[in-house]
Structures are given as structure tokens and as C-alpha cells.
């Protein structure tokens, strides 16, 4: 594979986000948006307002993360007693009852993965702000990693849905979804959109700038 060592941006070309067609960057137009000549997708040389959007979504997700962990995820009522469980109390319950594998799975998916995503995304954002040229390849890899792991946080939402279905009214016990479930869903959705709005090409733009 031959390589002409230049990026599409440097050559004034735009790569379509959907169909990968390379086209000449349209003349600067103040109105309207440029569309891909092949598939009709909106063309952007870089994802629009990538840094600002990612910051905003990450911060929003961090705020949602607090009630998601503090408020109860499920409310179980059995024989007149009502018990509210947070994510962590569920993890502790599993640890004490010998199923540490399940405790580990829930802890990783619900607590650790969102936290890791915050740390990695903030690190990537800061590295671009401070125009770091260190290890761009590894940073791109980190980005790919955050994109891949984020979805697994949905696990607890599904567990709640399944529990609600299985233990429904008329049974000895009844399980309802607590307020944390909603905040938790918001954490997952906002971090997923945050990862999607981050543009890894910005990492390489800085590197190219410094090399010129």
C-alpha cells in the first residue's frame, strides 16, 4: 500500500463520514451545509464543535453519575418490608453471598466502566488542549477502547428490566425500578454520545501542526 504522507485536511479534501468517499472541500459557503456527492451525508472536515460537545457531554454524564450511584436502583417489597438497593449495595450483596464473579461483572460494567470513560475522555480532551504530541497512536487506541466498552454499562438497566418482569405483582415479592435507573441510563447515553462526538483526527492534527 503506497502512502502519500498527508492528511485529507492538508490536501483540502473531505472524507465522508458515512461512505468514506474523498471529495474536494466545497467552497466556503456561509449558508447551508455541504453534502457528500455520493451518499448525501453532511460533510465535515472534522466533527463539528467536537471538543466543546465532548466536554459538555462528559460533564453532564459526571453529574448524572452521582445520583445514579447514590439513589436506589431497585425497590423490592416482600411481605410488607420494603428494601431499596443501590448499585453498590447489590455488588456487596453478591460478594457476601459467594457469587463474587457476578459482583465483579456488575461492578465493572456499572461503576468502573463509566468512571474509566470519564478519565480517558478528559485525558484525551486535555491532551488536545495542551497540544500534546506524545504517543498519538496510543491515544487513538485509547479512544477506540472507550468507544467499545461504553455500551456494556447498559447491563444494570437490563437486569432491572428483567427483574421487574419476572417478579411482578401477585407474587410474594414485587420489584420496581428506582430513580437511579433513569440517571444511570442517562450516564450511558451521554457517555456514548460523548465518545461519538469526539474526533480522534484532532489528535493527529496537532502532531501534523508541530511537524511543519
Amino acid at each position: 500500500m503506497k502512502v502519500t504522507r498527508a492528511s485529507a485536511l492538508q490536501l483540502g479534501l473531505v472524507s465522508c463520514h458515512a461512505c468514506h468517499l474523498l471529495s474536494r472541500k466545497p467552497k466556503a459557503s456561509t449558508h447551508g451545509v455541504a453534502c457528500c456527492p455520493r451518499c448525501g451525508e453532511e460533510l465535515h472536515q472534522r466533527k463539528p464543535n467536537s471538543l466543546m460537545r465532548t466536554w459538555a457531554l462528559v460533564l453532564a454524564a459526571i453529574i448524572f453519575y452521582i445520583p445514579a450511584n447514590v439513589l436506589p436502583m431497585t425497590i423490592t417489597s416482600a411481605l410488607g418490608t420494603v428494601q431499596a438497593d443501590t448499585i453498590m449495595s447489590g455488588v456487596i450483596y453478591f460478594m457476601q453471598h459467594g457469587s463474587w464473579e457476578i459482583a465483579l461483572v456488575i461492578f465493572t460494567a456499572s461503576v468502573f466502566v463509566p468512571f474509566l470513560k470519564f478519565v480517558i475522555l478528559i485525558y484525551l480532551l486535555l491532551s488536545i488542549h495542551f497540544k500534546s504530541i506524545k504517543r498519538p497512536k496510543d491515544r487513538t487506541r485509547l479512544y477506540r477502547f472507550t468507544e467499545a466498552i461504553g455500551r456494556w454499562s447498559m447491563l444494570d438497566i437490563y437486569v432491572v428490566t428483567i427483574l421487574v418482569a419476572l417478579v411482578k405483582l401477585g407474587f410474594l415479592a414485587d420489584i420496581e425500578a428506582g430513580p437511579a435507573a433513569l440517571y444511570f441510563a442517562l450516564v450511558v447515553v451521554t457517555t456514548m454520545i460523548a465518545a461519538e462526538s469526539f474526533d480522534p483526527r484532532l489528535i493527529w492534527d496537532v502532531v501534523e501542526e508541530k511537524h511543519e
Partner: protein
Amino acid sequence: MHQIACHECDLIHDIPAMPSRAAAVCVRCGCVMFRAQANSIDRTLAWTFAGLVLYIVAVSFPFLAMKNGPIFNETGLLTGIQLLFKQGIIPLATLVFLTCVLIPLIQMLGLLYIFVPLKLNVRVQYAMPVFRLFKHVKPWSMMEIYMLGILVSIVKLGKMATIIPGLAVIAFGLLIFVLNFALSSVDSHMVWERLEGDS
């Protein structure tokens, strides 16, 4: 020979004619830019039809049953979503419905809409917007995580009652693999080129 830019670092590459099953890897950041597929149309269609059959089974047959002495409670894939809806937690119900029920269906119907006309060599309207939609919904299809959720729930309730997995769970589990095979048989570059040639 044509040029494409890596979608993760924007470096331009000259792509020669690719042998089937070969992947084009970016020389700078190492990301897989695309993969050429052999028999993409036939394989995608076969997996998608298999997926649709499994999907119908997964939605219509009993999913999980819970047995505790005389009490027997059977649920379907949609029961939990309906109950969340009734409890008034509509955003949550919608999210679960979208990620585990609607989006997998959109993916399969989208594939049929694109690949059946390609196979028959006919043109259909809106093929390109449909294929774009298909690409955009991909990260939001989360059946494999739902499956893990089932495992966690079984362990969680295991001490309270006996959980009996239904036919639908097996279909759902198979569907995860079949849909993944269908998705990985799609040769996007071939599809875009064919769609472009048609219009």
C-alpha cells in the same frame, strides 16, 4: 486504485484492488479502515433471513419463566418493557425497547432492503439513506448485553425461585451470533460503489 482517508487519523492512502477477505489497515494509527468480503451479498442475505426467523421466535415465544412452589410466572421479551411503561418510567422502557427490540429489527430490515435489490440487480428508491441509517444505528444495538443481564438476573433470583429459560432465550442467544455474522459479511465499500453505479 482509489484514495481514501483513514477515518481515525485522516491520513490519505492509495488503495489498490483488494483481494477478498483482506483488510486495509492505516499505516499511521493502525485502525482497520475497511475489509473486503467474499460473496458479501449472498452471505449477508443468508444470515439476515436466518436472523429474522430467530427474531420472530424470540419476540413471540415465552422468554423466561419463574417457578416458586405453586406460583408460575411466565414472561416474554417485551413483558419487562411493558411493566416499566406502566410504572411510568417511560424513558427507560423506550431505551430498552430501542436497543434490544427495535434497532436489531431495523438492522435486519435495512440489510434486506439494500441487499435483495443488489442481488436481483434492480434499483430501489432511498437505498442510500437506508444504508446510512443502518450505519448510524449500529452502536445502539445491544442484544449481547441483554443476554448478560439475563445471566445476572438468573443468579440474583436463583435463591428465591427456579428460573426456566424458554425457547425465546435460545433464539435470542443465537440471534446475537447470527446478526453479528450478517453484519460482518457486509462489504460497505462494495455496497456504496454498487449504489453509486445504480443511480
